[in-house]
């Protein structure tokens, strides 16, 4: 039985893990390699490393920090932020990432998804989709540049298109909920998971195990991503996994 995954997220700015609300007001949370090693030891199933200032600053991913992090955690590492070409992706994989997450660049140039999937296989291509609920209509709009720019794209349509182009996994973040602790946007998750056949990672808004459980049971998510609750120590990977197991979810017992 394929296990549901718990994924701590390292939002990295200038080489340090930071936490903020809606991508602003950033607070230093520590060194990415230290945190990755600690989370892996705690039973994390994967690590997501997002260089959150790379895309807005229009620069490439910090490869040395990626490599330092990859060498400390013997669990899978997904890296996003600043990947705009097949060559960028190759360099990030060479630095020790197992998967690369494409966000802004994929919206601006959708064929990048296909080219990366052709070269490295779709299993290495995660498309990250940041969503904002439309205030006066049904559905969700895709936003880019760390939530700063609206695109007019419909979230569900973009998710389907990304999978057609070659995304092997989707990382779906609710920008409305991100950093608020108000729980994942379960409706958005369900709208997407009920339409695509690739694994979907839920992101944005988790404050405790009940949110993770709901994202899986009601949102259909295959994996759940959270940051602040683990960085701040409100919950540990071990404690949320115990709660998920008690709720009847299939999770990996850390070896």
């Amino acid at each position: 039985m394929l296990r549901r995954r718990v994924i701590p997220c390292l939002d990295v700015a200038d080489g340090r893990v930071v936490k903020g609300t809606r991508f602003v007001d950033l607070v230093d949370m520590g060194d990415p390699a230290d945190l990755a090693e600690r989370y892996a030891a705690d039973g994390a199933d994967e690590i997501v490393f997002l260089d959150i200032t790379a895309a807005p600053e229009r620069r490439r991913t910090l490869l040395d920090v990626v490599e330092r992090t990859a060498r400390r955690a013997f669990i899978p590492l997904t890296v996003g932020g600043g990947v705009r070409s097949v060559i960028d992706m190759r360099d990030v994989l060479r630095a020790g990432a197992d998967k690369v997450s494409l966000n802004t660049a994929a919206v601006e140039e959708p064929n990048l998804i296909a080219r990366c999937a052709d070269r490295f296989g779709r299993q290495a291509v995660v498309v990250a989709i940041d969503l904002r609920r439309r205030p006066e209509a049904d559905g969700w709009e895709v936003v880019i540049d760390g939530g700063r720019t609206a695109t007019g794209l419909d979230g569900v349509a973009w998710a389907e298109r990304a999978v057609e182009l070659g995304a092997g996994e989707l990382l779906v973040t609710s920008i409305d909920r991100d950093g608020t602790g108000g729980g994942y946007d379960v409706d958005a998750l369900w709208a997407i998971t009920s339409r695509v056949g690739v694994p979907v990672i839920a992101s944005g808004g988790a404050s405790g195990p009940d949110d993770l459980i709901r994202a899986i049971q009601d949102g259909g998510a295959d994996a759940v991503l959270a940051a602040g609750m683990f960085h701040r120590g409100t919950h540990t990977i071990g404690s949320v996994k115990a709660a998920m197991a008690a709720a009847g979810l299939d999770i990996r017992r850390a070896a």
Partner: protein
Amino acid sequence: MRVAVVDYGAGNLVSIDQALQRVGADVVIARDPAAIEDADALIVPGVGAARPAMRRLARSDLLDPIRTWLADDRPYLGICLGLQLLFDGSDEDGTDTLGVIEGRTIRLEDAPTLPHIGWNQVDRRRDHPLFDGIPDGADLYFVHSYAGTPRDAGVALATTRHGRQFVSAVARGRILGVQFHPERSGRDGLRLLANFVAIARAGSARTAIRPFGVTA
């Protein structure tokens, strides 16, 4: 103990390098035939499709040395695509592969999601030193959509279920292959790599050292 890890331009070698160092192996990243010749054991990692992999191996003049290595039954560990390449061919793009293990690489059948990404249970079909110290049914990390289907069920060391059951580890002599990624599978994965290094070491010392009390 020198382990050559074949680099043919696809994917992450940092984690396999780091994991092998952790279990005490000297790692050589092999990009040409000379780097393979001096090695005691060979690891072919890799993700993605068979055709570009076979092309890149051929272009680096690595294909013939690998074929010779396999024909001599020297210690080989194929990881993910490195396992799939051992079969006759792949349905993913119709490419002929190394043909060391009879059977084809086919798309996972009846899978609820594809790619099959995440930790899944590896159930043992027979005992083998590659899995020493790893519990039966251990969760290991997978990232793939295709898997090799050996014609001879006897080569299967382990199976895993995602939709239908597929073969997740094989052994034929000292040619070994795993569909999961031991270098990304935490402590049990490191244990498997340590076991592979031990198997290779035992093989290379076979003629020189005999266990105490055993006579020829």
